[in-house]
């Protein structure tokens, strides 16, 4: 997200000077990502939760797995729903009121990264064909915005889903109800762990995993989702700037190279807790 904030004007200028000298304020390399940590399943009413930090960016993701009716077109498939609230709590530039175009874009890009990976078998979310399927809701709150909400939200959602438990149900011919407070020994299976990689362009330099001030200094954004078999599964170019075709090819290649590093970070953080 390229946020134009007056308070960041001065800092953004500093960012640009450093970048021009091939340095980042944070001392990170242009293509280095920040540290990841998380707390899993600390929210007891959620079926799964992840309090996720990426550098100083902090996301709270909560999962609810509910029974729904399938679409007539896909009577044996469940689905997921990704909602991201840009709470005015975490950033003075976010407003109250219904989701605006910024949060809609963010939610939809994260949704596509997860959905287009085809890492979830929708048919495994079927309870009873034509009647009952699982709907996996992932709602996220930004608790602190220090940049790169796209990647942070996507990682948080993935971690939360992979650790979310399915509620126990009682199923009859015509009814299906959740047994409150009881769970199956089963989590949402994601077979190929899609990860999103977001780059921004500052003047003519491209950096990975921007912080907030770096976003303020940038004018174009590029996000690409990669799966563990090194396929690209989703792309979103954003903001008013542009990329050359060759820059895009480079970005893709860097993202592919970074997949394993970031995936390992994420899996390690997941194991710790």
């Amino acid at each position, binding site marked *: 997200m390229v946020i134009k904030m007056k308070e960041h004007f001065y800092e953004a200028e500093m960012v640009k000077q450093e970048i021009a000298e091939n340095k980042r304020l944070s001392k990170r390399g242009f293509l280095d990502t920040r540290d990841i940590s998380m707390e899993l399943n600390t*929210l*007891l*009413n*959620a*079926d799964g*939760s992840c309090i996720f930090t990426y550098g*100083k960016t902090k996301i*709270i993701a*909560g*999962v*609810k797995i*509910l029974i729904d009716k399938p679409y007539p077109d896909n009577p044996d498939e469940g689905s997921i729903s990704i*909602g991201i*609230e840009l*709470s*005015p*709590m*975490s*950033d*003075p530039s976010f407003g*109250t009121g*219904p989701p605006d175009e910024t949060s809609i874009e963010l939610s939809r890009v994260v949704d596509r990264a997860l959905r287009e990976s085809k890492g979830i078998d929708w048919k495994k979310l079927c309870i009873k064909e034509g009647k009952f399927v699982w709907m996996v*809701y992932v*709602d996220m*709150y930004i*608790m*602190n*915005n*220090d940049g790169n909400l796209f990647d942070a939200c996507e990682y948080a959602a993935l971690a939360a889903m992979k650790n979310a438990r399915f509620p126990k149900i009682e199923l009859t011919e015509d009814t299906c109800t959740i*047994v*409150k*407070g*009881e769970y199956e020994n089963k989590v949402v299976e994601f077979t190929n762990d899609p990860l999103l990689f977001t780059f921004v362009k500052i003047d003519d330099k491209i950096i990975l995993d921007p912080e907030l001030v770096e976003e303020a200094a940038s004018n174009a954004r590029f996000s690409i989702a990669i799966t563990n078999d090194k396929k690209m599964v989703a792309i979103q170019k954003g903001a008013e700037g542009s990329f050359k075709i060759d820059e895009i090819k480079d970005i893709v290649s860097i993202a592919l190279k970074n997949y394993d590093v970031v995936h390992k970070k994420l899996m390690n953080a997941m194991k710790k807790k």
Partner: protein
Amino acid sequence: MVKNEEWYFDQKGKRFDGRGQFEQRPINLKVGVIDRADGSAYVEWGQNKAVAAVYGPREMLPKHMANPNKATIRYFYRMAPFSVPDRKNPKPGRREIEISKVSGEALSRAAELEQFPNTAIDVFVTILDANAGTRITALLAASLALADAGIPMKDLVSGTSVGKAGGKLISDLSKHEEDAPDAVDLPIAMLPNSDEVVLMQMDGPLTEKEFNEILEVARKSCKEIKDMQVKVLKERFKDDFNGD
């Protein structure tokens, strides 16, 4: 969770979750949890978890809403969709709007709003996990966040819930107790220094005698909780306090 267990006190007088009659659930306070807010706090009260952020005093928009005599507190109490057993619709409901109104009024009594005419002080509180008592959990967090933001205050807003379940008066009802057939829930917030009640709501039948009795329990609890609030603020501003 065991379902449909309709008992509220065991033979030793302990409650369903093992607490004594007027024992509160563990409370955990933290100040300064959101970098970009002017003030922020996190409160755990049993299973309840609330995050609060304060922005302001800042320009009131739209301008015609500004009060030329003082700052206006706008309080947004919201429950996350995953904070309750059933998924909550993300759109704020009527309950959230009412709680926001009375909570904002309670805070307004505490803050020295006259010092900041024409401005808005926005207080955002999100409930991440809920198990009865969220409006008071939220208000504690908001009060700490307001102090953390450096807004001058007559006193901290402290609060608790008292009520009744299974035939006896109790402190700090859990969800299980709130669902009792004879449940009474009475959230209350005070400025303990001046013995002022700034928020009070009640659902369910009580006699006058019961009411007067439980009110004294609440008064005492508010004082205790305020001590906890002060302690955590002192730690936050250690240098400032030491410097005096």
